[in-house]
């Protein structure tokens, strides 16, 4: 088991290193150089030269690279061009917002998807199954920001249950914080839940046809025990993998939903920095979002060992 986990951690570190390297080179590949990109066409040559210097862009590439890496490790992300605040502080405000929306979306998604998948599989071709399948289909077909807008219109504007704009920090009380992230959370969580429901349903249907389920039936095990004790854990294995992969949907969703609900999260930060050509912020934002994604997947991998004994207890004894 520890071999599997160390392997996954090593893999995650490797991927993050590659992400950092790509961002480093991607930035330098901007047409006309990052500084020209930042200051725009009309900036004077000498202004461009000065900025290049204090951004350290004139040193040889290798030196820049080492510097970039060490800064990252130590957490010094440089300063934003437009607002000349330390990128670190900007990011520090944004991360909790994105994280809370994503976390709310994922937990809500799983709490809805797993039971829906089970109902879909156990009561096949009955009204409950059709309802779950149709809902899953709709969930997959709607972009997060559209769901966000719909929710904002219905629950925000018409019913007024939840705030439509803005994010209240957790420090000001859990309930207001929660009220603030319910709508964006659902908007982000719905497509995620849809994907997980479909996978849960088909995986459970396959598991119920397995040979060991017929053994359980031949042993006289009752239906409910057979479903929850014998089938569920086996059916969850592919679902956990898909839940990991589909996290990309959630994080992608937060970017657009933050715009809909006017929340200054990582996504918003990223988009604004691109529009303002504020590259130091852009590169850190991309790095962090990928970082969250890779870390979440690492958690999913570790959760997988809890579900699959074959991974926990190695190979076959003689």
């Amino acid at each position: 088991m520890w071999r599997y986990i160390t392997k996954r951690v090593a893999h995650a570190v490797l991927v993050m290193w590659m992400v950092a390297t790509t961002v480093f080179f991607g930035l330098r590949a901007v047409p006309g150089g990052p500084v020209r990109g930042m200051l725009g066409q009309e900036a004077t040559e000498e202004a461009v030269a000065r900025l290049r210097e204090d951004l350290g862009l004139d040193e040889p590439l290798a030196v820049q690279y080492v510097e970039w890496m060490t800064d990252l490790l130590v957490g010094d992300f440089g300063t934003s061009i437009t607002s000349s605040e330390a990128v670190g502080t900007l990011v520090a405000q944004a991360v909790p917002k994105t994280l809370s929306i994503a976390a709310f979306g994922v937990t809500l998604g799983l709490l809805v998807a797993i039971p829906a998948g089970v109902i879909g599989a156990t009561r096949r071709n009955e009204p409950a199954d059709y309802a779950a399948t149709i809902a899953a289909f709709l969930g997959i077909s709607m972009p997060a920001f559209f769901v966000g807008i719909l929710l904002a219109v219905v629950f925000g504007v018409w019913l007024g249950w939840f705030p439509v704009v803005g994010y209240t920090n957790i420090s000001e009380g859990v309930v207001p914080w929660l009220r603030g992230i319910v709508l964006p959370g659902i908007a982000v969580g719905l497509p995620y839940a849809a994907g997980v429901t479909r996978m849960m349903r088909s995986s459970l249907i396959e598991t119920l046809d397995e040979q060991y389920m017929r053994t359980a039936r031949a042993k006289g095990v009752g239906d409910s025990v057979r479903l929850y004790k014998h089938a569920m854990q086996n059916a969850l294995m592919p679902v956990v993998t898909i839940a990991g992969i589909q996290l990309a949907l959630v994080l992608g969703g937060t970017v657009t939903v933050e715009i809909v609900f006017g929340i200054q999260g990582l996504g918003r930060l990223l988009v604004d920095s691109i529009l303002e050509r504020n590259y130091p912020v852009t590169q850190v934002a991309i790095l962090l979002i990928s970082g969250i994604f890779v870390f979440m997947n690492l958690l999913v991998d570790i959760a997988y060992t809890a579900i699959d004994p074959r991974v926990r207890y190695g190979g076959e004894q003689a």
Partner: protein
Amino acid sequence: MSADTPVGAEPSEDPDSEDPDSVDRDAATPGDDGAADDADPVLSAEGLEKHFEQSDGFLDRLLGTGGTVKAVDGVDLEVREGETLAVVGESGCGKSTLGQALLNLHRPTDGTVRYRGEEITGLSGSAMRPYRRHLQMVFQDPLASLNPRKTVGDIVIGPMEVHDEPSTDPDVTTTAEVRVDGAVTEPVAVSVDDDVDRAVGSVEGVAAVDVEVGPATDGEGIEVDLGEAGAVLAATVDRTADGYEVRISVDASTPDLRRYRAGALLERVGLERGHLDRYPSQFSGGQQQRVGIARALAVEPDLIVADEPVSALDVSVQAQILNLLEELQTELGLSLLFISHDLSVVRQVADRVAVMYLGEIVETAPVDELFAEPRHPYTKSLLSAVPRIDPGDRSDRTVLRGSVPSPIDPPAGCRFHTRCPEVIPGAGWDGDQESFRRAFSFRTRVESGELEPDAVRDRLEAESDASATDETVAARLLETALPGAVDAFPAGVTESLREAGRLVAAGEDDDAAALLRETCPSPCVDEAPRTVETVDAATVACHRVDPDAPGEERVGD
């Protein structure tokens, strides 16, 4: 076990540019049974090894995880002209890997493979292609070995396209078997072009065309009927002074020729020409296997490696396929490497048998000798384990204990020592063979590390609700792991066995193993047995049979 694909084989594959068939197929008269000792064997292997790397990806290698699976670990064998050599062994002994390694479908890790004396070890891609036409393969799963999206015709024609068949073979003589209807009075001389063997398959070096000559329906002259072959052959008749001259020549495009040959092959294996355009899923298991055989025959190979060809079939269909293989072998002079786990099928089909255990050949012998008096203990146990229909044939059965060890780290010395009922007592053992075997099996159990004293302690405490001392745990360990009574041993032995039990109970497995190695040593563990050539060209790898094997004179078993 990640299959090891030929990496870097150049992708461009152009059948026409392959170098001319460098190996002249000396049409040795096929079908002469028994070993033509002077001629090279059709296929031979010396010290052949194939190991699979267990770790998949450089992260694994980094962390040094995963061992190597020694699927084939030093095999010598040869298949002679027109002979059926059977390789028999239980699942996991590496017989399938051996079959594929011989044909370079797995790149051998070590050792050499020769086809008619020429080395072909490790050849890949186009270098191996000329040899592949002589070495074909039939597979275990009838349906899975046929491409589901291709018609049976395409499947059988495939090999012809790859090897640019049907090409004429200068050594094959073409003749005509002429039957002239009585009504034709004048003499009829029939000549056959010598490339007609492209259309009609050759049997024992001769390609014969059936020609029927009868009176022409429209009055005068004659009419030639070539039967089915008429589709691809043309008969030109010209009138001469003293009768008729008929010339038979090939009159079809290569694709048509291939389709005709494919049709003939299907009929040869017991299917119908009409099946050419069907898909594999539209046939029964037996019929699918016949298509597999037809594909193997498409390029008239010398040798066919049949990997468990009948294991997936029902008994009655199995018999049909076995008879078909036998007929084809006698008629076409094929050599056959027959891989199977079913001893009754092997007895029915084989001329010589090689018994394989955990990557090594432990015994080879002509089939009658092997079944009449097997020499290697494993072969004996295998034979005795097979259930018999006729009660008369059932002798007392020696049932092997334990299961096959894992090929990742096979047991030291003779690989069968962990299960061998006739393990040889080392020097200084003054008890009888049976008591040595019992002590020795306790030793292998301790060495395998399977004994878990604390699980035994839990059980004892659960049963007796009193805390279990080392003494009671040791006693229970001995009771379960040592077959038979503890004290039925020569003097010092019982004491050291009990001591070993106590050591294990105290968690000192290594000391216990060391003590047992002293108490009951055996040459079977210290040294790997040599493969000894016994009287009638049979080989055995066992100390018992090796005249100058190490260790004390053997106690009569």
